[in-house]
């Protein structure tokens, strides 16, 4: 645990040591706000809730979260520091978890900076703050799943642009997997079990449920197991590179 935290600290310092942290936080807050007001019609809806704010998170994460995750391993490989890191007396999983936690905390920090939205809606009306709290938790969990995917893909390449594009695409497929467009593609030939499986992999389906104010165990489990799965895959990729 001690090693995980040391790695996390270093990674966090790396985020805040470059302009990345500030650029990301500003753009994240600006975009989530802009979407809520201009696309989500925050005022016109006349409702004291933050649905119009949260419902665009999956789409924003598609663009922003892979940008945070892409450097995690690709940069280490490119600069050669992976050789330094992996010859320190730490295990591969400590390195992976440490890096992932740093990225997750960082996105969480950006998410916290959107608190003026919460202040605004509380000033204008009396929203159900329980729903807002669950939505924040749900959004944070979803960001974690995106990050785990991004971290795993980042370990496959030393090119950050490739890492970004591939993980964005993969995340896009997972977000879209519950939509009719994707499901219709499978309906003609695939068994119902597979179709159910695909639709249950959808980020959107799970996130919509959370936005309604329930935080079902199934959804929490879904995001956490996705994180666990991709971090595990990440470890396999790193170990594989050692043997190759």
């Amino acid at each position: 645990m001690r090693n995980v935290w040391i790695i996390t600290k270093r990674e966090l310092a790396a985020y805040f040591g470059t302009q990345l942290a500030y650029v990301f936080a500003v753009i994240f807050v600006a975009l989530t706000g802009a979407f809520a007001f201009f696309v989500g019609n925050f005022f016109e809806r006349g409702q004291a809730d933050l649905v119009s704010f949260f419902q665009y998170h999956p789409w924003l994460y598609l663009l922003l979260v892979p940008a945070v995750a892409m450097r995690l391993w690709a940069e280490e490989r490119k600069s050669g520091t992976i050789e330094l890191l992996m010859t320190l007396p730490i295990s591969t999983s400590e390195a992976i978890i440490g890096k992932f936690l740093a990225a997750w905390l960082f996105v969480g920090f950006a998410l916290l900076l959107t608190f003026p939205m919460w202040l605004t809606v509380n000033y204008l009306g009396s929203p159900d703050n329980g729903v807002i709290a669950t939505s924040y938790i749900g959004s944070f969990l979803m960001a974690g799943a995106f990050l785990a995917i991004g971290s795993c893909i980042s370990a496959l390449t030393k090119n950050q642009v490739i890492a970004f594009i591939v993980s964005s695409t993969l995340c896009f497929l997972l977000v879209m997997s519950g939509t009719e467009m994707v499901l219709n593609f499978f309906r003609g030939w695939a068994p119902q079990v597979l179709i159910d499986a695909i639709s249950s992999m959808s980020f959107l389906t799970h996130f919509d449920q959370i936005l309604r104010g329930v935080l079902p165990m199934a959804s929490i489990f879904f995001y956490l197991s996705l994180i666990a799965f991709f971090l595990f895959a990440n470890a396999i990729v790193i170990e594989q590179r050692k043997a190759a």
Partner: protein
Amino acid sequence: MDVLVEADRLRKTFGPIVAVDDISLKVAKGEVLGFLGPNGAGKSTTMKMLVGFLEPDSGSARICGKSVAEQPKQAKVRIGYLPEGAPAYGDMTVGSFLKFIAEIRGFNGGDLRDRIAASVARTGLHDVIDQRIETLSKGFKRRVGLAQAILHEPAVLIMDEPTDGLDPNQKHHVRSLIADMAKDKAIIVSTHILEEVEAVCTRAVVIDRGRIVADGTAEELQRRMPYHNAVCLELDAAKADAAVAALSALPMVARVERIASTNAHAKLRAFSKGNVPIATEVATVLSQQALPVAEMHVERGRLDEVFRQITTHEASSQNA
């Protein structure tokens, strides 16, 4: 003899290329092993397997008796490693980088500060401690790499081309640092600069195409040269023939050859039988015969020629 590094039949292939083929070696405490070889010979790959960054296809490595494959943490605790090019996190300052390394190495509080201070003092980094690593010159970056490698006083120090690209002063500094630490560690230094082997190494291993082609002290390697311990002299051209006759008469002289002659001076080289030292005998016979010598020196056999002989010989025999 305390054997601290043990490689047993290491082999590594990358696709069709055999990078390291059956390399075994032992390095004991107090030894500084020079790891020599042309570019692409497999030096770095071997080192990466020793430190556990790459897994060998077959064979094993042990550091202080700990298996790198089975007890990676215990092995890595005992190693200080300077990868090729001394990579470091460019966005960190020297101080914060060393602090990160010290924390990962398990130091706390006052101990941590002492370790960093000692390491910084040894590598001469005080002036740049608050600078970001990416803004440093190549020499300083290399020193940062060294500082992180020696911070925990490891029993085994493995350095991949520690002096590559440094200016002569910096090279000298790194070499004296290595010499300072040599007595209580096992050190492996890869290089393709041969003077370095003579300067710091107690033993040299030459590898070529993934195989060990020579293993011995610098002196032993030099002995492989045909003109090791030959004596070169320069004297008046008129006396050259007399000198050749006198020297050829000596029992320990194999033959004498004329290397060059200008109008006034002739250069001779007397080869020794069995490469034994012959300088005294040569000097005695020359003074007995009253042959004045302008210059005289003993050929050691230059290491880079030995190196070229060993490695190009291998290459041509494989091509044949």
